[in-house]
């Protein structure tokens, strides 16, 4: 009997401990997520009420007028910014994936003179920080007459050594037998790359695509330098302008801008969180 009692007691203590841990963790998760909820809540509050003290945690008069203003005001072009960001990120991702995977396949499988030396030179270039190359690439863009165009955002991103490195590692892990069978059937090298290697690497390609897309979507410094006209800006650049111009007067408008820049990504994340977390870990590990 005594043993049974103490067993019940032990279980109760364990349950209590678990519950306490969960309460603490849920609280921490709430704190971490709070700024995002706060941004959304403020964007739905009329501008006159964001200055209330104590703050309105749930808007008392929820409104979409901030979004309406953002899209209709002449001195803002958030519709353009959104389209620019989406276009540039999508094209950059597709082109980067194609160009780097083609090179990675060649480095992994095809034999040609100088292959390993070229690969080694490429890897050593990873050591050079991107900051060093900013000014010369900017001047190059100016000479190409690419400043203030999509070209300036898309093409420099193709020199993604890390992507080639990561994909090569992945391709090396694919068994050769499949390719050899295809060669006997008369497939071309490009056919093998396109129909065998790429489909078999969908997990690595997805991971890389997410990585490249987010990098492009969220980049601030480079677009800030090479873009000038209001309607050419991407969302992160537009947001800095919005926040510096309207910060003091129209806070809820600025928050609505941040929502437009971040909520599409967060919704996508909510649906594909498993793949994204796995993919990020995978690409992050390749960096090790």
């Amino acid at each position: 009997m005594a043993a049974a009692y103490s067993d019940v007691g032990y279980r109760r203590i364990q349950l209590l401990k678990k519950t306490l841990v969960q309460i603490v963790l849920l609280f921490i998760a709430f704190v971490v997520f709070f700024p995002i909820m706060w941004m959304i809540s403020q964007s739905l509050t009329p501008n006159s009420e964001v200055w209330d003290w104590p703050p309105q945690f749930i808007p008392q008069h929820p409104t979409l007028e901030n979004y309406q203003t953002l899209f209709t005001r002449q001195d803002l072009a958030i519709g353009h910014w959104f389209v620019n960001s989406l276009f540039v990120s999508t094209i950059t991702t597709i082109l980067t994936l194609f160009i780097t995977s083609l090179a990675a396949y060649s480095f992994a499988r095809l034999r040609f003179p100088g292959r390993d030396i070229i690969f080694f030179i490429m890897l050593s270039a990873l050591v050079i920080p991107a900051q060093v190359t900013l000014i010369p690439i900017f001047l190059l863009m100016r000479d190409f007459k690419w400043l203030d165009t999509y070209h300036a955002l898309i093409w420099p991103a193709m020199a993604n050594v890390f992507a080639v490195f990561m994909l090569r590692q992945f391709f090396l892990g694919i068994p050769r037998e499949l390719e050899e069978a295809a060669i006997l059937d008369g497939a071309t090298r490009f056919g093998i790359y396109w129909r065998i290697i790429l489909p078999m690497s969908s997990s690595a390609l997805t991971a890389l695509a997410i990585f490249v897309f987010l990098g492009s979507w969220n980049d601030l410094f480079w677009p800030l330098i090479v873009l000038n006209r209001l309607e050419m800006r991407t969302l992160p650049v537009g947001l800095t302008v919005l926040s510096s111009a309207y910060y003091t007067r129209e806070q809820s408008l600025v928050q609505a801008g941040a929502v437009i820049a971040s909520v599409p990504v967060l919704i996508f994340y909510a649906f594909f969180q498993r793949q994204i977390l796995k993919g990020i870990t995978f690409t992050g590990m390749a960096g090790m």
Partner: protein
Amino acid sequence: MQKVATGPTLQGRIGQFQFTLRRQEAVTGFLFILPFVAFFVIFRVWPAIQAILMSFRQWEVLMPEHPYIGLNNFRELMNDDLWWLSLRNTSLFAVLTVIGNTLISLAAALVVIQPIRFQTLYRVVFYAPVLLSVSSVCVIWSWILNKEFGVLNYFLSKFGIAPVPWTADPNIVIPSLSLVTIWWGFGFPMLVFMAGLQAIPEHLYEAAKIDGANAWQRFRFVTLPLLRPTILFVTVTQFIAHLQVFGQSFIITGGGPGRSSYTVIMHLYYTAWRFYRMGYGAAMAVALGIVMIVLTLIQFRFFGRREEE
């Protein structure tokens, strides 16, 4: 005799065939890397060389000539008070952020790797801020950190704490920006630590348990030593990444108050793109690049040692 006669011919033909195949493979191989190598040379190799060459020239955008001036740019850099101030601010920011980030992400990884309820929810929530752009993060936080109307000071006032000038006090502004950055970024090292923790063999923990080690001792004598390479990887890569801080200062404080959150990349931005002093900017970028390369090499050294062990 006939066999001997046909043998070399057949072999010769096979050899010929193999040679053609190999040449074809080499040509294909070159063609496949060609687009990438072209971009690599144009946007990586050439600009890197160009940056070094420019750093020895007085290269102003509006001037037709770019005369060679030897080490003058670097000499000017050594006497540039703003450069040293920005380097000091940036280092302080990077150190604070790396310490905070490493501790918090390691703690988070240790928790979410346990088989607890809502495990996925915690992982998803902790990683969510990483997906935001620096602009969104700064817009959100400059409002939260607002001294008069910010919600953070509102919460603190509930505990009787007077309004803190998060971004208006020269002594607090860098820790504030660090706080924002840790919130934004700790999810990534968390994932790296999770992968590192998963690689630790379970039987080591069981052996430690049998030897009577408690949870703390298991962490101290099993987890921590085996996680050392991961910790080193995280701290060095994070430190290099945070030396490049720009958006946080640019958007939240504009480098202020005064120059107290003025960063190295901000100095580069103003030198090259506001004052159009490209040569001096290149010298600055090269100097920063050398610092980062040294850090990277130190990291490689430590990693090399791990493989020797």
